[in-house]
Each structure stands twice: as C-alpha cells, then as structure tokens.
C-alpha cells in the first residue's frame, strides 16, 4: 500500500503537567472517529493503571487516526505521545524526533510553566513546527488574551490565532484538527532510499517478542526484510510491520518513508532496541545513523530488598520482566548485613524509581524494603584509581581517598515573584549555586541554579511545591561532576552499624542530617523491652544520638467473654507487625524506617 506523504501528519502534543495534554489527545482520537465514545476510557492514551492514577504518561504511546478535513481530503494523523516528566527527558527528545510538528497546549489560567518552556525548546531543537493551543477556556479564571500575549512574549511564537479550546468539554477542538492539517508539515523522505528508521520506544510482548515503535525517515521496511540496529549491532528478520490502532496493533504490508508504525522481528530483549537507535536494512544499509542517539544512564540508585527474604527469586524474576519493557532499568545483585539478599537498582530519576517500586508491589505482589536513593559518586583514590560509587557501603577507607566528586544538574525553576525568596532559600539549603534570574513577566520569574543531584533526589520536588503553595515548576539537565566535601554517614542502632541506613552526604549538612535521621528513627522504631540508643556517626565519631525508651507496659486490663475475639485480633495485629520488622542484632526495625531518610525536610 502506497501512501501519499502529503496526507500524513506526524505530531505530538507538548504541555506542562496537568495542562490537558491527555484530555486533548482523547478528544482528537474521538473526533477523528476511530473510537466510539463508549470505547473511550477516561484517558485513552494512558493505558497503564498506574499512569492513570498519577495523571502522567510514562511510556510514550502512539495512535494512528484518520481525519476527514474541511478540504474533503482524508489525512492520517500519527499522534505520538510523550512522557511528561524530567526523568524521561531523553525519551521525550526521541519521541519529538519522530514528529514533524508539535501542538503546544497551554493552560488558559496558569500560562507558561517551567516544563512548557523546556518542552518547547526541546521541540524547537528538533526543528519541529510548533503551534500553540490555549486550553481550559471553560475555567472561570481563564485569561486567554493574557496567555496568548505571554506565549508571544516569552516563547516568541505566533499565538494571536491560536485555537482557544476546552479539551474537557470538547469546545472548539475542530479548530485544532484543522490547524494540524494546515500548520504541521507533511513528512519528507524517499521510499526508495536505503532504510533509515528511528526507534522511539519499544515494548515486550510475550507472543511477538519486542515490538519496536519507529518512524521511517528514509526507505521502506517490509515483512521478511533482514534489518540491523546500528548502535547495538543487533540483527533480525522482520516478522510483521503495522501501525497503531487505538489500543491495538494493526498489521500492514510495509511502512515507507514518512510513516510511523511498529516492527516485530522475534527480538527477545528490549536492550537490543534502544530508544534513539537507527534501524537499517542489512542488504542495503544507509550510510549514517540518524543523529541524537545516546546511551541512557541511570542517575539514581537504591537497594531493593524483598521484605520476606524467601521472595528473593520472585523479586529477581519481576525485575527481569520489567526490564524487558524498560531498558533504562538497571539492576545487579547485592547483599546487606541488615536486609539480606537484594538488588542495587539504577533509575532515570526518583519518579522512575517510585514507578518501578509501585509496579513491583502491585503487579508482582511483592513487599519491598527500599534503601535511601543515592547518586553515582566518583571516588578518586590516592593510587590514581577512580571508582563510580553507587552503594555507600562500598566506599573505600577514608585514608585511601584523595577526593570525591558528585553530579551537578543545572536547574530552571519558574515561580511567581512572591515565592522567589522562599525558593531561593530552599536552593541555598540544598547547596545550590545561583546563576541568575529572568523575569518572564511582572509576576513570574525564572530562577537558574546549579544544584547537586543528591540534594534534589529526595524530596526537593515536594519541598518546592509546599514552599510555593504549588506554584513553582521545575526542570533540570545533567551538567557534570564537581569536586565536593562528601562524607559517609553511618547509623548505629543499639551500637550496631546498620549498613542499609548509611548514606553519603555533604560534610556541611552531615550534622543536621544525622540529627534528623536519629529523630526520625526514634519515631519509627517501636519500643523494645530494653533501651535502644540510635546514633549517627562519621568515621566512628558519634555526631548525634537519640534513645528509644524501654517498653514498660503492654497489657490489656480487661478481657471477658465478649472481649476475646477483639483480644485475638489485637494480638494477631501485634504479631503481624513483627513480621514486617527486620532484625538487627536484637532490635527489630520496621521496614519503613529504611525509607525515613527520604522525608527529612520539615518545612
């Protein structure tokens, strides 16, 4: 089947979180008529349960619909969904590279936010034609004129004729569809040229193997064709090609230049089909891969342990399965004195970590203990060796260390002017280096900071939101490594060091962190029959201490006939509680205590 390129529109929707991206996607799918209203789930694109609950899109997804435009022609719309969180910036950039244009959705009440800017810049970097849509005009606080002016001033793209819509009610959505036809350029590319296809996502299916989502830039791919991934070198024969129906894969004969679709080729591992890689033909290869490929690296590491040690093999199987679908998930076995056998896992960011953790708990029914997340530190030893440290327990003896380095990000924070002071204070507390501030308009400013990554992985986002009453938005990019005074903080419970509670921290905040950690653990560790000291130490020197007093009373005064069932339940609860404890020496530590380092911000 040969398709007229001029009738194809490959585009994505970009927006700040909650500005209505998924809702608009739903409306577009609905109006293009491939789905009846009855088939529509609340948000068609976000089909993972978890995504719907969090209201964000994790994995890029794509749908092909047919639109009959006012000019009487039928157009193929390939709507490529993009993830909406900084953790997935690279995935976003590859999805954008698969498009020819982007619809920028801006909330008519909130206006431009940090992610709006970041995404627009990303889109412009990929030479996409961006046109704005002003959404949520049904809100009482909507001010589309102001927002249109803001788009023109701040971003510098035409906005006077931007469709003003309500994706929620469906008002004026037709205008968006027409604008897609008019303003998004048709794809180019020669169907006869050597194959050059960009991988922008892949998923694992137990029947078909890896399903590769790709945009054909040049050439044509068909069934039976031997292909090669240029970066990983993996080779395979194409089993099936097709396009994306709503919620289903629809096979077709071939995919040619300009089209978006999928390829299956009995590939067993998503690692062979990395996002950003180029697929070419083995027989008639293209000269060069498409630009922009980058190996995805984990930014945040933590230990994941099964709450019940016997479930270790189950956890391993679950991680294996998740990795089939998520090449950015890294894991390797490790052991902890306190927690037994588990895995050191690497993630793109804290959100990615939380998602994996929740999926393990929900989809695989595992009860997990997570240790404090950390970043990769570079430890330069006196003998000239350099170690990339992901687990604080592996820190060499201080006498062997010449110096250490930590990763730094450059961050942009957009905030209304009244909260600038509070946010600057927060950044300062997190060892931020102030780079500058730009006023976007009278009431809003863009703050630029360099921040150590380990200061933002814990609770920076929460702190940012709470100190700006939800108004601040935030985006960051890896900048590089910087030498820093870092120390390992150890926690001793009843005089025994608990390896799983150790973490790396800047020397200046060590005392404060140690104190808070002890306070927090004092709340978390239940009273025992004896007194339990909780201490924080650096290199054997105690810097903070709290004490869990001995339990003196645990008795039910009254227990007659009618109380016996209740008494049983009480005792069962008590026994159940003990099961969720970890035995360290003769102290039982609840599992959630291991995560208490995550929430140390008190404001």
């Amino acid at each position: 089947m040969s398709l007229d390129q001029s009738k194809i529109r490959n585009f994505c929707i970009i927006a700040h979180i909650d500005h209505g991206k998924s809702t608009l996607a739903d409306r577009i799918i609905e109006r293009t008529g491939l789905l009846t209203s009855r088939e529509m789930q609340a948000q068609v694109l976000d089909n993972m349960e978890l995504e719907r609950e969090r209201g964000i899109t994790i994995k890029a997804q794509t749908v092909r619909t047919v639109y009959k435009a006012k000019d009487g022609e039928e157009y193929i719309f390939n709507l490529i969904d993009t993830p909406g969180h900084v953790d997935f910036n690279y995935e976003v950039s590859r999805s954008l590279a698969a498009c020819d244009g982007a619809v920028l959705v801006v909330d008519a009440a909130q206006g431009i936010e940090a992610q709006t800017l970041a995404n627009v810049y990303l889109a412009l970097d990929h030479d996409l034609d961006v046109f704005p849509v002003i959404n949520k005009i049904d809100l009482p606080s909507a001010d589309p004129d102001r927002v249109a002016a803001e788009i023109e001033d701040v971003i510098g793209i035409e906005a006077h004729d931007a469709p003003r819509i309500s994706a929620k009610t469906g008002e004026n959505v037709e205008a968006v569809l027409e604008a897609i036809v008019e303003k998004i350029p048709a794809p180019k590319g020669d169907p006869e040229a050597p194959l050059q296809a960009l991988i922008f996502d892949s998923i694992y299916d137990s029947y078909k193997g890896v399903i590769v989502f790709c945009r054909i830039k040049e050439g044509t791919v068909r069934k039976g064709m031997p292909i090669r991934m240029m970066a990983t070198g993996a080779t395979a024969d194409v089993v099936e090609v097709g396009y994306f129906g709503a919620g289903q894969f629809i096979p077709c004969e071939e995919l040619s230049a300009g089209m978006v679709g999928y390829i299956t080729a009995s590939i067993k591992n998503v690692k062979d089909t990395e996002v950003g890689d180029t697929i070419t033909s083995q027989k008639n290869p293209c000269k060069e891969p498409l630009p922009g490929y980058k190996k995805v690296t984990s930014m945040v590491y933590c230990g994941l342990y099964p709450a019940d040690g016997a479930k270790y093999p189950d956890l391993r199987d679950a991680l294996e399965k998740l990795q089939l679908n998520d090449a950015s998930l890294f894991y390797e076995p490790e052991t902890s004195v306190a927690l037994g056998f588990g895995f050191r896992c690497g993630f793109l960011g804290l959100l990615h970590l939380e998602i994996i953790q929740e999926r393990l708990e929900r989809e695989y029914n595992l009860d997990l203990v997570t240790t404090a997340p950390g970043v990769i530190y570079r430890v330069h030893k006196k003998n000239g060796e350099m170690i990339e440290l992901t687990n604080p327990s592996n820190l060499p003896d201080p006498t062997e260390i010449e110096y250490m380095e930590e990763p730094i990000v450059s961050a942009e924070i957009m905030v209304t002017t009244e909260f600038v002071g509070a946010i600057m204070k927060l950044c300062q507390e997190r060892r931020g280096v102030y780079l500058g501030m730009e006023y976007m308009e009278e009431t809003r400013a863009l703050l630029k900071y360099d921040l150590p990554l380990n200061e933002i992985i814990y609770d920076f986002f929460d702190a940012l939101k709470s100190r700006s009453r939800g108004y601040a938005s935030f985006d960051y990019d890896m900048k590089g490594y910087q030498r820093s005074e870092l120390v390992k903080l150890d926690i001793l419970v009843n005089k025994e060091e608990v390896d799983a509670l150790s973490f790396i921290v800047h020397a200046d905040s060590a005392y404060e962190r140690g104190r808070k950690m002890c306070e927090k653990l004092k709340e978390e560790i239940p009273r025992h029959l004896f007194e339990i000291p909780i201490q924080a130490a650096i290199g054997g020197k105690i810097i903070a201490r709290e004490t869990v007093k001995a339990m003196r009373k645990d008795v039910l005064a009254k227990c007659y006939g009618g109380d016996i069932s209740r008494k049983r339940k009480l005792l069962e609860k008590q026994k159940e509680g003990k099961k969720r404890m970890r035995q360290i020496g003769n102290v039982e530590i609840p599992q959630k205590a291991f995560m208490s380092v995550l929430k140390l911000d008190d404001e």
Partner: protein
Amino acid sequence: MELYIHIPFCERKCAYCDFLSMPATLQIQRAYVEKLIDEIIGESGGVRAYEVTSIFIGGGTPSILPGEYILGILQAAGDYFDIRKDAEVTIEINPGTLDEHKLECYREAGINRISLGLQSADDWELKVLGRIHTYDDFLKSYQQVRLAGFSNVNVDLMSALPGQTLSSWEKTLKKVTMLRPEHISAYSLIIEEGTPFYERYGTGEKAFPPLPDEDTEREMYHMTKTILEEHGYHRYEISNYARKGFDCRHNTGYWTGVDYLGLGIGAASCISGFRFKKEGNLNTYLEMASRKDFPSCIYQDIQKLSVREQMEEFMFLGLRLTEGVSGAEFHQRFGQNMWNIYGNVIEDMKQQGLLRVEYPIVALTEKGTDLSNYVMSHFLLD
C-alpha cells in the same frame, strides 16, 4: 456451662464506656425483658445436656430495671435450664439505682453475688468519668447490700484515670479495703474508640485533666497489688483480686475455656468450639424476636475455632491467671505435649524474664504481666 445475660440500659452513658448500653424508657425496658425471656426459653432447647454452673447479669446497669424484671428473668432461666444448686449468680449494680425492694427481689431470684461499680472513692474523679453517683452514694448502696444479707460482694475500681494521682489512688484502695468486700476488680482505664474519652485522649494530644504517664500508671498497678495483699487479697488475674475462696467463678470460666452462652443483645457465646454473638441493635433485636426462627436468627459472626485457635486461646487466656497454665491440662484437652508446641516460645520468654516455669505450670512474671500482650502474641501459631 455459664450464662451471661446482658441488660443494655443505664441512666446515662459514662465518658469512658464502650459497652453496649443506653438510656431507655420503662416501656422499652419491659419490651426487652419480655423478648429476653423468650430468648432464654428458645435457647434452652439446644443446650439441655449442659449443667449451668454460674450466671452473670451484666450491663449497662442491670439494677436500673425494676426488681421484678430480674426475678422474672432468673425464674425463666431456672425453669428452662439445669442450674446447679451451688451456682454462682452475680448481678452488676450501680450506686444511685438501688433500693431495698430490688435487693429483696434479687435474693428471691437466687442471686448470691453482688458486683458494685464504684470506680473511684474520689468525687472529682467520679465526675470526670461521668458517673452519676458520689462516694457517699456508693457507701449507702454498699450498706444496703450488706444489710440485705449478701455475703459475696465485688467492688469495681479503676486506676490511671484522668487527673488521678498515686496518692488519690492509694486513698481509694484504702477506703475500699476498710469495707472488706470479698472481691475487688481493679482495672487500668482503657481509652476505647468511639467514646468521649477517645476523642479527648485518643489522639495523643495533651488534654485536661491529663492521663497519668506510663511510669505512673505502672506504679499504680504495682501499688494495687501491694496494698491489697497487705489487706488479705490475692491477685488471681491481671486485674482481679479476692479474699481466699472468693475468686469469681464466672469470670475464671472465660479464662479457662468453660463454655458460655450469652443472652440478650450483643452478648457473646462460645459453645463446643463455636463462637458467635447475638444481634447488637436493640430495635432489630426487638423486631426479630417476633420471628419464628428466633433466637437462631439473631446469631452473628458464627465461627468454628480450629484446634490451633483453641490452643492459642488456652494459652493467651490462661496466662491472664496468676496460677498460669498447666501442661497437664493442655495435654488432657488437646492430647498433645504443650512443650512440643510452645517449647521454644516458653524458653524464649523465660530467658527474657517474662515467664516463670514450674513444670508443668507456666505463668507470667511481674514483668511479664506488665508486657502480657507482647508475651501472648508469641503464643499465636503460624
């Protein structure tokens, strides 16, 4: 078998009380007693083989009912159940609800044990609890009871009350021991969910008057034992003290696994390994009472206890008793050696100083009593 008869009425709900109890008109009281008698008659058919060793009329405040109602209830029980001649028959009464006529009815009904709810000898503490009486009211009732010839009397007391001090508790104990009741129940106050006290104290926020802290509470508890022992009372259960020969037989039955049948709304039963309770809503109870399948239609939460559960209960209830549990009795009841099943737990708890073992007896130590939930939770089997 033991009978428990529930009277869900009181003049006014106390601030700490989570029992099934409420104020009601005489008309409702009468309707309830009529249905209760139907229930007694209805139940008797199924348990003909059992001999009744004790009866306990609890509440609420059973003494709020006219004396004839109590007489009627116990006459029905006597007519339809096989009650042993020397059965212990107790009624709970509260100061301020008693008169001589009621006491005469109780005697005639065969009641031989009176349980008086005092709680505290300090009028201010009584007020904080929301009690309807003063210490003087109690004295008056106590005297009436004695004059009516009752020779087995319990007094209920509570420690760890809001605003209570060690010295006020000591005064309460001393005042009461001077009256020489045969039995004293001394509970530490439990802040129960759904009570006004829970709203005030359950959140962990500081409230007025403050509850004694944990150390003071334990000191009160230990002082109770010391003072009562000085006055000739022995502790035979975590919160129960008696002069020689006056342990409450009915309650001891709960801790040693004797079958019991509960009558009236919300009453719990455990017969031949089956546990159940009765409908807890008064109006529903009254409606259902006219059905043909009454009283079986008011059974709820029927549960068959497994052997494992029976063993667990044998342990965690039996350990409440000062004399503890006996391996010999365990073997007799379950045909298994207690040490095969609980040997490790017993040894572990003994090592921690929480249990004392005098083969074949296992009992809580003083420290083990303070931490009895901790100890007992270990006796639940996997």
